[in-house]
């Protein structure tokens, strides 16, 4: 792949890796427990938002199933901890593989027909959420309705001993996700995905293998969300269907990405930061319902006023305010 020799691309990779190193060194060393826990959640949201943007942002196929992939990762990891003494790495891999496998099955089926695009795709991924919830809450191996205590199974391990370690893991996953996101921003892969968003039929007629790209990217995006589920299982300590598969998770992820904008790979980063800070600020209200209302209302306002998100509102080259029509095709 010639695109990977592009210097600007490597500069971005280096910047991300540099930020990650600073975060891994500075936050656990100087931060209080609160800062570390907050940082862990923040980084997890970044992984989710970036991985959602990877598929849904690039292709325009909006998935409501991202919370499901995250939740499956959480439950897969919890099942590994509960039924075996395998180390954390195994749980992490199982989490990613489980989410990726589900996405593979769904993707192969759904993308086979062009009818399931747009809102129909969104609803199918939502239906997937309900089926997965029914399965998980009825299968005793995974949950069976009582919830799973993870904490007692991971007490002795490295990952389970401190939130600092979870933070380091999450940062690692974020670097991985950002790396993939950067790669899609300027390689053939990313260009193919965006051509699907702009006009799938034209892309196909010009020889872009849209089916293969869609399935592949859907799987990668889901697997990344699944990976993020593994440290989340330890962080939560007690895993329960209602919280893990809450509809808020896809809503927040979509909100972060829309707010940040999908026309640049780093848009979701800004979105994740804004939403996490907003949520933290709303905690002081003491009413989860009220903060929910404000968040939902904020999403409506953001969609109405900033269809391209924050990053889309910033001109592509600083100084030139000219906006070419080609850039207008962005957020859908």
């Amino acid at each position: 792949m010639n695109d990977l020799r592009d210097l600007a691309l490597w500069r971005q990779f280096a910047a991300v890796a540099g930020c990650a190193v600073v975060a891994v060194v500075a936050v656990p060393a100087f931060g209080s427990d609160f800062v570390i826990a907050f940082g862990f959640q923040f980084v997890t949201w970044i992984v989710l938002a970036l991985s959602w943007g990877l598929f849904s942002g690039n292709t325009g196929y909006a998935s409501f199933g991202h919370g499901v992939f995250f939740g499956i990762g959480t439950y897969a990891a919890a099942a590994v901890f509960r039924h075996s003494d395998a180390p954390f790495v195994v749980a992490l891999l199982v989490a990613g593989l489980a989410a990726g496998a589900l996405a593979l099955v769904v993707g192969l089926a759904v993308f086979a027909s062009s009818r399931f695009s747009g809102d129909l795709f969104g609803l199918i991924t939502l239906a997937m959420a309900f089926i997965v919830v029914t399965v998980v809450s009825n299968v005793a191996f995974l949950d069976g309705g009582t919830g799973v205590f993870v904490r007692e199974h991971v007490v002795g391990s490295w990952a389970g001993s401190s939130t600092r370690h979870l933070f380091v893991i999450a940062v690692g996953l974020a670097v991985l996700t950002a790396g993939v996101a950067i790669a899609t921003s300027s390689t053939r892969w990313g260009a193919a995905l965006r051509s699907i968003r702009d006009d799938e039929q034209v892309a196909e007629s010009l020889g872009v293998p849209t089916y293969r790209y869609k399935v592949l990217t859907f799987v990668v995006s889901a697997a990344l969300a699944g990976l993020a589920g593994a440290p989340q299982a330890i962080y939560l300590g007690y895993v329960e269907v209602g919280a893990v598969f809450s509809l808020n998770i896809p809503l927040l992820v979509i909100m972060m990405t829309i707010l940040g904008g999908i026309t640049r790979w780093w848009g979701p980063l800004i979105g994740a930061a804004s939403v996490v800070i907003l949520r933290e600020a709303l905690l002081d209200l003491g009413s989860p319902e009220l903060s929910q209302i404000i968040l939902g209302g904020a999403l409506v306002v953001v969609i109405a006023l900033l269809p391209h998100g924050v990053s889309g509102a910033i001109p592509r080259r600083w100084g030139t305010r000219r906006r070419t029509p080609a850039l207008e095709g962005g957020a859908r």
Partner: protein
Amino acid sequence: MSVSSLALAQTLLNGALLGCLFGSIALGLSVKWGHLGVADFFHLSLTLLGAYLTYSLVTELLWDPFLTLAVTVPAFFVVGVGVQYLFHLIDAQPFTTLLITFALFIVTESVVSMIWSPDLLNLRPLLADGFTTSIRLPDPLPRLAVQPIDLVALVCAALMVGLATYALRSTRAGRAVQAMRQDAAIAETLGVRVLPLTLAVSGLAAATAAVAGMVVSLRMPLTPTLPLQWIGVVVVATMLGGLGRPLGALVAAVVLMMIQNAWSLWFPPQWAPAVTFGVLFLFLALQPLTRLARERITSGRTA
């Protein structure tokens, strides 16, 4: 495990009547999705809101449940018009409208649990006996019984779906809606006033949520998360019935609920929600086959 035919008949009957309720919820969704291109989650929230408003008016002001429609129907019409006008103002794409209604869905859940508390609220103990005593069916089927409320659901569903189907097929405005669905720009050129028409359709669809909400409040205990339990059946019925076809959605909802209820007789009932989606995926998987069969038939005819 053997199940008596009486139990099966009663279960199927209950399922069919509950399906009527879901069919009347699906009516608004089907019309908005099929004709306005808005896959409206918020319609389910409006139904819930209608149910809670009915509950409050009945318990606190001691209104007759049917009288509450005089308030909720016009109020919901205005809400429906307002939401559609917002979509018009921001020139929303289908996906944007889906997101906005999804956000409103979540907001409404929180609003309801703030105002009415997340606890179960039950209207049934407060109703007159006429509402709650089961009625035995007349002579040929003397051993089956129905709830009066289910009959209300049946009548409401039949009325609303019948009116909507008639209006869409046979009135001038209904034909304009069909034309608009096929090609809005051309319809506008030919004299269809698109904006007032979409606003009116959206308002009417929302108004049906008020009626469905009244039936809901009479039929089941209320919690803010009820729409999550409906969403499967309602959305699947809408899709199976064909977008924009209220009658199809009603029939699909009735069939779905009959299947779901019959399933619970033989298999663990906690799996019943998955049955609905199973039917949907089966239907989707069969699509290529039906298309193949149809093309076979038509090509045979032309050859």
